[in-house]
Structure formats: structure tokens, C-alpha cells
């Protein structure tokens, strides 16, 4: 029987390959995800360990509060005097002090150099202690005085060499510095597109506004002393607000932010691999069902020859096993290409990931193979079981077909139960209180999965009406699309063919009535088959619709929030639209003639009621340019916060029973505790609040924060938004190349661009599932053409031309795709409306334009899926088709 199964596979190579393609793509995404994240991890690991290769311990400042999970509060610098003390310890062999910060390099065009959204890193370097330098000198010399070393990538791409002058801007205005040499970060030319700049310690301290301070002291143990002894010695002299860690601990600490990000990225991408595999499993189950129906006589013959049901089951499952294995191996290697593609994809949306070469771990191989084989075998079980139900008598009966399964009549009920169960899980997940994030996601995931399976099984009932409705739509959308590409593709193709002496008809645009009519009827012929084929596309489209609807639902309230809060003419932002800017930028703007009002919002973290929260700070100009929706307090209180005034958002006030006049303590990052009094409670807009839970005055914030930064700066100018005013502002910002002035509309657009590029990443990842479903349609059509060989022969004999055969198949394909699209879009909208009902940040907005695009894409998917099967059908010799049995 094993031999029989394998021979069967070989005999149906093409069909097997088509069946397997869903698995190949799904596994490829999974293996690609692992390769991608492993490669990034290894790149970061090499960076972080490289950093401390000659270091035994590192002293850093200590935040008084634990940074929140995605915290951005850097450790505060400490007094530089500590370095001398450390050096004086007998256990210390060598110690070097360093500061670091953001240092913007300015290109020859006067614009700041940014690669994607990557940061611009600045370091101090100590030529006397090169073993502690994070930077490696590639050429030239270490910098002294007003010199700088820059990374090789920036030098190469922006045309700088040693000896050139380059603009550098850190906390203050831009300065011109001479390039003394080129560096790399450890052995990596760049970390994720970040630019690198190195200065001598004194210059760096001045640039980063850390004169007399250090961010880090790196220590090497004196030979003959143990690391432990050295650490103990250091701890004895360590002042408050500093800490010492071993090099390993420090490297881990540095990597903590990136590794939590990477594990998120990994899960995120694996989810999409899982979706593609899920869609692929539909394709497999459907293809196997069709193949098994077509092999009824073969199975019956085997049964008459004495094969047991168990043996038949074994044959089919073994076929699936082999198919799954081969497909998974193919997917595994395709994953390498996918990883490379994902690197490029993230790069393209401005999110460069570090890459030191692809890493292919054993875990990747094991997981990919197991998942791929398992999915294939699971998908084969139902068709395999059906194969065992073939009675031996079917071998001798003309036109024997597979009898419907015993459970067939319960199918709609079962399907409905599955769908209802799925919806119920989703509802519980969304609306039950007190669920952990993990439980919530599991409930949602399982619910949606059940819903998809249920709808897929149930949709056979919807096929006839939907196909009837889709028929004319398919007909005319194909006409429109054909008309669109007619002058650009069809006519030139025809001309080329004519030139090569091929006798082909001049391409027409109008639909071929009879061919299209038969195609339409074919799509209604086997509702189960059409439904299963459409189901694969349905899943992809439901998810794409969900994403689009949530995206639209996110963007609109966000824009409303911006409109509601900011009444300024201009906003000043970083070139990348989101990096905070140092306060001198706003100060410079305030000096510009014509500027009426300037207000800035600072952002940071603090600890109150035992938890780390985000806080913001506003200055006295705020009431003029910012509008709050007050529950208590007023616009006026915004400008009168003083040393102890605070404004809290409504939800925070509720959970901590804060009302006007309540007092509460808040510990800032530098360790100081403020006794705050509530001066106002505001209702944040649904689209997301730009303010922290607690907002205090800028003066108080600056007094308790090292190196405050502005999240937003808003400007009102006399005359409002005019070209002249825009130019004036941009002129004033020329000393701050990282800053730009945006009009209110530009600002809104820039802020939503972030959401849009995330949506684009999601679309690309979901496109893979749509691609899998396209192959599903191809597969069904090829199998169908094969099954209807004799019928096609008859049609050709009585006068259907090759072109008409193609159009007939295409019509069936497009209708199938449209059925998938309609169910998918409706399902996506339903899921989105549920989410929107739950989440305040999202309003339910139907993205009509996108939905039309998705429908058109579905038609195109249908057209493309039909190309190859239609060619095969058209090539059939009517004679062979007639003799075929």
C-alpha cells in the first residue's frame, strides 16, 4: 500500500504540487519569521556583547522609578568626579568614562541625515582607552576638540570622507565639525540604519549638555584581582543614584528593550504565517476532496481487490504526509527568501532592521517541518475518511460518484453551531471584564478560527444566490478591466503574435454571452466545491477588511482628537515626525518675528500610586493653543499649574478617586517626590490622548528631569498659515536641521502616516494568504477541467471556440472569487464592528474606497487564477476529450 500511495503521488505530480502550494507558502512565512528574528537577535547580540568585550563591569546612573515596559526614560547621568574615585581603587585596572546621546549629522544639502526611522547615535570616545570604545576606528584618527568620527555607511552614502566638514547637532544649535576618521559599531557598519558620531569626551559632554557628568564608567579588573573583589570595592564607594553591573548583566540590560521588541515582532509575524497555513489547509482539504471524488472508481477497484478501509485511509494519509513533508522542506528554504524580503519590506517602510547575515537555526527546521506536516495531515483526514466510504460496487457502476457522507445532513447545523460558538468566544473575549491580555487574544483567535470554519462549511448554502448575483458583476467587471488593459496589453500582444504569423482573433472587449453563461452555471453546479474554494479567499479578505476598517476607525477619531485639542497654525516636529525635540528648538521659534504664541508639551515617566505612568508637562502659553474637554477645572487652570498643580485624565482620576483639590505624591525619574494637587480633570478624546495620565507644569518638570524633551511644539503666527510664514519658520529652523515646521493639516497627515505604514505592512503580510487562496482557485479549476474533460470535448465539438472555453473558465473563477470576497468583506466588517464597539479609540467607519479596491483585487485574483487552467482547457483536443473516460 505504501508503494501504491507513492506511485499515486508521482502519477499526479502536478495536482500534488498545486495542493501543496498553500503549505509551502505558510511554512515559508513561519521559517522566514524565525530566520528574520534570529538574524536580528544575533546582530544585536553581537553588537551588545562586542560593546563590553574588554569590560568587566559598568557603572551607570539609576532611575528612581522602574521604567515601564516600553519605557524610554534613559538613566540620568552622574557626576564625573566618580571616575577619579574609581580609578583610585586598587582593584581597578583601568576605567573609562563615557557619555552618549542623540547627535544629528547634517548632509551637504543642509538636511539632517536619517536612514528610515533609525536613531542618530552619538558617543564619546577615549583614544587613550580604545579597549572601552563602542566604536571601532576603520580609517583616520580619533577625534580631538571640534572633530568628529562618523560611521562608514553615512560617509559612503552621503559622500563624506576624512578631512571634510560635517554639520552636527545635539542638544544645542548645529555646529560644523571636521571629520577625523571613520568608524563602525563593533564589527557592524550600522545598527539598523542608525547614524554614528563620536567625539572626545569634553566635546561630547558639551554637545549633549552633560558638562561635568558621565553616563557610564567602564571598568577592567586589575590583573591578579578577582572580578568579585573589584565589584565589592566599587560597590563600597558607589554614590546614590548609581549602580554597577557586570559586563554580561549590562549587555543584557541594554538588549532588554530590543529583545522584548523582537519577541513581539516574532509573535506578530508568526501569526501571519499561521493565517497563511490556515488558508493553506483549506486549499489542501478542498483539493484532496476533489481528487478523492475523482478517484472513486480507483478506490472501489482497490476495495474489490481486497483492500481494507484502514488500508485506504492509510494510503490517503500517507500521501498527505509525504506531500506535507516535501512542501514543508520547500517552504523552509523559501523562508530564507521571505526573510530577505521582510528585511527589505521593513526597510521600505522606514524601519531598518540590523542584519549581519541570515541565521538558520535547528529550531526553525524542526518547527517548520512539524507544523507543515501536521497541518497537511489534519487537512487530509476528512477527505481520507470519505475515501474509505467508497463501496466496492462503485468500481463497476458507470459514472459512480462519491455518496454524500452520513453526517452530511447535519452539516448546516454543525456549521452554524461552529460559527455561533466562534462569535460567542469573540464576544466573551471582547466584553467580559478582567481577562488577561493572553486569555483575551486566545479567545479572539480561537473564536475567529471557529467562525471561519463554520462560515466556510455553511457557505455552500449561500453559493447559489451569491453566484447568481455575482454573475453579472463578474461579467461586467471583467469587461471594464479588459477595456482598461486593452490598449496597453491586449492589442500590443495581438500585434506581436501577428508579426510572428500566429493567426489570432483581434482582441475584443465585450463579454462572450454564451461562454460566460455556461461558466456562470458551472459555478453553481457543485456548491460545496465552490464554497470551499471561495472560503480560502474569504479568510484573507475578511482579515484585510478587518485591518482596513480598524485602520479607518483609528485614523478618523485620531484626526478628530487633533482637531479638538490643537488650535495652532503650525506644529514643529522632528524630520521623522515622532522623535522628541530638545527645548532650544522651541526657544528659537519663540524669537522669530511674527510668532504670536508658542507652546510645548514635554513628555516623560513618573511613579504614582505604586505604578509607572506617562506624564506630560505644559507651559503657561498652553491655554491659548491647547483645548481640553474639562470635567472639572478650566482652560485657565492649564496655565496656572505652578509648582504643585496637576491635571489628570478622567479614567486615572476615577481609578484613584481623585477630584479637584485632591493631593497625591508622585516620584519623578530623578527620585524627587512631588506633592501634587489636582487642579483639573479632563476627558481625553476617543482618538487617543496626547497627554499623560498626569500633566504638570513645565517648570516643575524641568526641575526634576535630566534633559527634558518636547513631544510637541505648537505655534501661532500673525496671519495664520501662509507661504511666507512657513518660509520664515523653516528659515528659523535652519540651525536645527532635525526640526521642521508643519501646517496643521500636514501635521495631521504626518501623524496618521505612521498608522498607514503599519496598515501597509499588514496588507503585505495578508497578501500572502490571498496568494495562497489564489492557488486554491487555480487548483480547483485545474481539477475541474480534468474532471470535465469529456464535457469540454463535447462543447468544443458543437462549436465552442478555444477563446470561449477560456472565457467560460474565467467566468467561473471570477464568480468564485467574488463569492469569497463578498462573504469575506461582510465577515471582516462584522468583526471590525465588534472590536469598534469594545474599543473607545476606534469608531466604526466603513472604508468604502478600500472595500471597492479589495473587490477589484478579488476579481483580478479570479482572472489570474483562471489563466493557467483556462489554457489547459482550451488546449484539450476535442477528440481526446470525447474519448476520455
Amino acid at each position: 500500500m505504501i508503494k501504491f500511495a507513492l506511485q499515486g503521488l508521482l502519477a499526479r505530480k502536478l495536482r500534488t504540487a498545486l495542493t501543496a502550494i498553500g503549505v509551502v507558502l505558510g511554512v515559508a512565512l513561519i521559517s522566514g519569521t524565525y530566520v528574520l528574528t534570529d538574524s536580528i537577535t544575533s546582530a544585536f547580540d553581537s553588537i551588545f556583547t562586542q560593546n563590553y568585550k574588554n569590560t568587566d563591569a559598568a557603572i551607570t546612573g539609576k532611575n528612581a522609578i522602574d521604567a515601564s515596559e516600553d519605557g524610554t526614560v534613559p538613566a540620568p547621568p552622574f557626576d564625573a568626579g566618580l571616575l577619579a574615585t574609581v580609578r583610585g581603587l586598587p582593584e581597578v585596572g583601568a576605567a573609562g568614562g563615557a557619555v552618549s546621546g542623540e547627535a544629528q549629522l547634517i548632509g551637504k544639502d543642509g538636511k539632517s541625515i536619517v536612514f528610515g526611522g533609525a536613531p542618530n547615535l552619538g558617543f564619546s570616545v577615549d583614544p587613550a582607552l580604545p579597549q572601552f570604545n563602542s566604536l571601532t576606528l576603520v580609517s583616520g584618527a580619533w577625534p580631538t576638540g571640534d572633530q568628529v568620527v562618523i560611521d562608514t555607511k553615512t560617509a559612503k552614502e552621503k559622500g563624506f570622507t576624512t578631512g571634510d566638514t560635517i554639520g552636527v547637532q545635539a542638544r544645542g544649535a548645529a555646529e560644523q565639525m571636521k571629520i577625523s576618521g571613520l568608524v563602525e559599531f563593533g564589527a557592524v557598519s550600522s545598527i539598523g540604519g542608525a547614524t554614528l558620531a563620536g567625539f572626545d569626551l569634553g566635546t561630547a559632554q558639551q554637545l549633549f549638555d552633560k558638562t561635568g557628568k558621565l553616563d557610564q564608567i567602564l571598568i577592567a579588573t586589575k590583573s591578579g584581582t578577582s572580578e568579585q573583589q573589584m565589584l565589592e570595592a566599587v560597590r563600597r564607594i558607589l554614590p546614590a543614584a548609581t549602580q554597577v553591573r557586570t559586563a554580561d548583566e549590562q549587555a543584557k540590560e541594554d538588549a532588554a528593550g530590543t529583545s522584548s521588541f523582537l519577541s513581539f515582532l516574532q509573535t506578530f509575524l508568526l501569526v501571519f504565517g499561521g493565517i497563511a497555513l490556515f488558508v493553506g489547509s483549506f486549499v489542501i482539504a478542498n483539493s484532496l476532496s476533489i481528487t478523492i471524488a475523482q478517484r472513486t472508481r480507483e478506490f472501489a477497484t482497490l476495495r474489490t481487490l481486497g483492500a481494507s478501509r484502514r488500508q485506504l485511509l492509510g494510503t490517503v494519509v500517507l500521501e498527505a504526509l509525504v506531500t506535507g513533508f516535501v512542501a514543508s522542506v520547500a517552504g523552509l528554504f523559501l523562508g530564507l527568501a521571505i526573510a530577505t524580503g521582510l528585511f527589505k519590506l521593513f526597510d521600505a517602510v522606514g524601519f531598518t532592521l540590523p542584519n549581519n547575515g541570515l541565521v538558520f537555526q535547528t529550531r526553525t527546521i524542526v518547527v517548520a517541518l512539524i507544523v507543515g506536516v501536521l497541518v497537511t495531515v489534519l487537512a487530509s483526514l476528512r477527505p481520507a475518511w470519505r475515501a474509505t466510504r467508497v463501496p466496492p460496487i462503485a468500481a463497476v457502476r458507470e459514472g459512480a460518484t462519491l455518496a454524500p457522507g452520513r453526517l452530511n445532513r447535519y452539516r448546516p447545523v454543525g456549521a452554524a453551531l461552529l460559527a455561533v460558538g466562534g462569535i460567542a468566544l469573540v464576544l466573551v473575549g471582547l466584553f467580559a471584564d478582567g481577562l488577561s491580555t493572553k486569555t483575551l487574544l486566545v479567545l479572539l483567535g480561537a473564536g475567529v478560527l471557529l467562525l471561519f470554519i463554520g462560515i466556510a462549511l455553511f457557505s455552500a448554502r449561500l453559493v447559489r444566490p451569491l453566484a447568481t448575483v455575482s454573475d453579472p458583476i463578474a461579467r461586467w467587471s471583467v469587461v471594464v478591466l479588459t477595456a482598461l488593459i486593452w490598449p496597453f496589453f491586449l492589442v500590443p500582444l495581438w500585434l506581436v503574435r501577428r508579426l510572428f504569423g500566429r493567426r489570432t482573433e483581434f482582441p475584443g472587449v465585450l463579454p462572450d454571452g454564451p461562454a460566460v453563461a455556461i461558466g456562470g452555471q458551472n459555478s453553481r453546479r457543485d456548491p460545496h466545491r465552490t464554497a470551499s474554494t471561495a472560503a480560502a479567499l474569504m479568510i484573507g479578505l475578511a482579515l484585510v477588511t478587518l485591518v482596513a476598517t480598524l485602520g479607518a476607525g483609528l485614523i478618523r477619531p485620531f484626526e478628530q482628537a487633533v482637531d479638538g485639542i490643537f488650535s495652532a497654525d503650525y506644529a514643529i516636529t522632528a524630520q521623522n515626525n515622532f522623535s522628541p525635540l530638545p527645548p532650544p528648538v522651541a526657544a528659537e521659534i519663540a524669537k522669530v518675528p511674527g510668532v504670536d504664541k508658542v507652546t510645548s508639551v514635554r513628555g516623560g515617566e513618573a511613579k504614582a500610586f505604586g505604578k509607572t505612568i506617562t506624564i506630560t508637562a505644559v507651559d503657561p502659553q498652553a491655554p491659548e493653543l491647547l483645548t481640553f474637554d474639562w470635567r472639572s477645572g478650566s482652560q485657565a487652570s492649564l496655565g496656572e499649574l505652578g509648582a504643585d498643580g496637576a491635571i489628570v485624565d478622567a479614567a486615572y482620576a476615577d481609578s484613584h478617586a481623585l477630584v479637584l483639590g485632591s493631593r497625591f505624591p508622585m516620584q519623578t525619574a530623578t527620585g524627587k517626590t512631588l506633592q501634587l494637587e489636582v487642579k483639573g480633570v479632563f476627558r481625553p478624546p476617543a482618538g487617543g490622548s496626547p497627554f499623560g495620565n498626569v500633566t504638570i507644569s513645565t517648570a516643575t518638570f524641568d526641575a526634576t528631569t535630566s534633559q527634558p524633551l518636547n513631544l510637541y511644539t505648537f505655534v501661532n503666527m500673525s496671519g495664520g498659515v501662509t507661504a511666507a510664514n512657513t518660509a520664515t519658520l523653516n528659515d528659523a529652523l535652519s540651525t536645527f536641521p532635525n526640526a521642521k515646521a508643519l501646517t496643521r493639516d500636514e501635521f495631521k497627515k504626518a501623524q496618521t502616516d505612521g498608522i498607514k505604514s503599519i496598515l501597509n505592512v499588514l496588507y503585505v503580510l495578508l497578501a500572502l494568504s490571498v496568494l495562497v487562496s489564489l492557488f486554491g482557485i487555480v487548483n480547483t479549476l485545474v481539477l475541474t477541467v480534468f474532471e470535465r474533460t469529456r464535457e469540454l470535448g463535447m462543447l468544443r465539438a458543437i462549436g465552442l471556440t478555444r477563446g470561449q472555453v477560456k472565457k467560460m473558465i474565467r467566468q467561473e473563477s471570477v464568480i468564485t472569487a467574488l463569492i469569497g470576497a463578498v462573504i469575506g468583506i461582510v465577515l471582516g466588517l462584522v468583526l471590525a464592528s465588534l472590536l469598534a464597539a469594545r474599543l473607545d479609540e476606534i469608531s466604526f467607519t466603513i472604508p468604502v474606497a478600500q472595500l471597492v479596491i479589495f473587490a477589484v483585487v478579488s476579481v483580478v485574483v479570479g482572472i489570474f487564477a483562471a489563466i493557467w487552467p483556462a489554457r489547459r482547457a482550451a488546449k484539450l483536443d476535442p477528440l481526446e476529450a470525447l474519448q476520455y473516460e
Partner: protein
Amino acid sequence: MEGTVTQVVEVVDAKDLVRVYGEGDTAVHALRGVGVRIEPGQLTAVMGPSGSGKSTLMHILAGLDRPTSGSVKIDGIEITTLGDDALTKLRRRHIGFIFQFFNLLPMLTARDNILLPLTIAGTKPDQEFFDTLVDRVGLADRLEHRPAELSGGQQQRVAIARALVSRPTVVFADEPTGNLDSRTSGEILSLMRSSVEEYGQTTVMVTHDAKAAAMADRVLYLADGEIVKETGRSNQHEILQIIDTLDLQ
């Protein structure tokens, strides 16, 4: 096609038909130089044992297969040099088919199956002719049924009506009774006979059934790719005798 031709145009005129399958040592000569003329308004039967080349002959005459050499004219048009599209369109206008396995489209009603050739060609059916035809084949009360709801004989009647509905120049029938019991076979054969008599429908029928051949105005006997004998209208007994003498079993 030239309307000025005055001499009688043969419905089907084939000359020196040779059909070789494969090449070299394994080559099979299905036809070894067959010439045949089909007279209008006649039922011609082609008889012969399996492998005699009778099906190949019919396929070539009907424009479904191409001869290795030789010429076939249908209604005066040389079809062996036509491109696929032109040939397909010629079949629409001039040729009707009746198949052994009926070959109806399962999702179409009997009515739609009958009208299929006209639908494909995009021509309007002649309602009067359609009605008499349906009446004649006895399907008037079965028009809205799908093939699965019809008996074998009824399915073949649909197939006959389908072949006749476009009033083709010639109808080719490939073992039309091969898949039917003897009583139904008789009904189908008399139906075909009456279509020749009532509508003057030229028909070529390939069969190895002497009873079927006995309905024909003319019988051609094929053996080893050659026409070995030709007779006029004969009864079943005569035909069986000829088969016996020629050793065509």
C-alpha cells in the same frame, strides 16, 4: 462558399484520406486512403469491427481530427487547412453531433441542453421548429428537467434534438445506441430515420450494430483502414451476412 457554383455540391466529399498515428516502427495506419461522398438527405451507416478506422473516419469528416494526408470538403469548403477558430465556427454551422455517452451538460435543463449549439453560436432559435422538434422526440413535458432526472433514452433524445436544432448540413452519430438497451435503441433509431425522412437531415452514423445499419440508405464497410464494400439499403440479415463473408467480426 461560392454561390455561383452550379454543379451539385456534395455535403461531404473526402478524398484519399490517410491517417497515421505515431511514427516509425510503432506507426499505426488507421486510414489507408479512404474516399467517400455523402449524399444529401441520406442516412449513411459506417460499419466495421473495432480498430477498422470507422471512428477515425467520422472524426476526420466532422472536423474533429485532421488527416495525415487527403482532403475533406464540407459543403464545398476544404476543412483540412482551416485554423482552429474557423473550424470551430464551421462546426457550429454545418455539423451536429450525437454521442454514445449523450454528453449533456448536467447543470442545464433539457431545454437549455437542446438549445446549447444555438446559444454558443449566438443565434436565435426558430421557435416553431424547436416546438415541432421537441414534440417529435417526445420531450415536450420533460423540458425543464435536468439530465440526472432523465432516463438514458430520454437523455439520448435530448442529444438528438440538440444535434438537429441548428439544422446542420450533416449530423454525425457515434454509436448512438451503444449505451442503450435494445428497446430504447429501436426508438432512437426510428427517431433518427424519421429525421432523415421528415427534415431531409443528412446523417452519418458509425455503428457496429447491424440493426442500426439496417435503417441506413447506404452502408459502408470498413476494414483495416479501407472501405471494403458498399451497399444500398439492406436488411439486418443481409448486413450480418456481408459482415460474415468479409470476416469483419
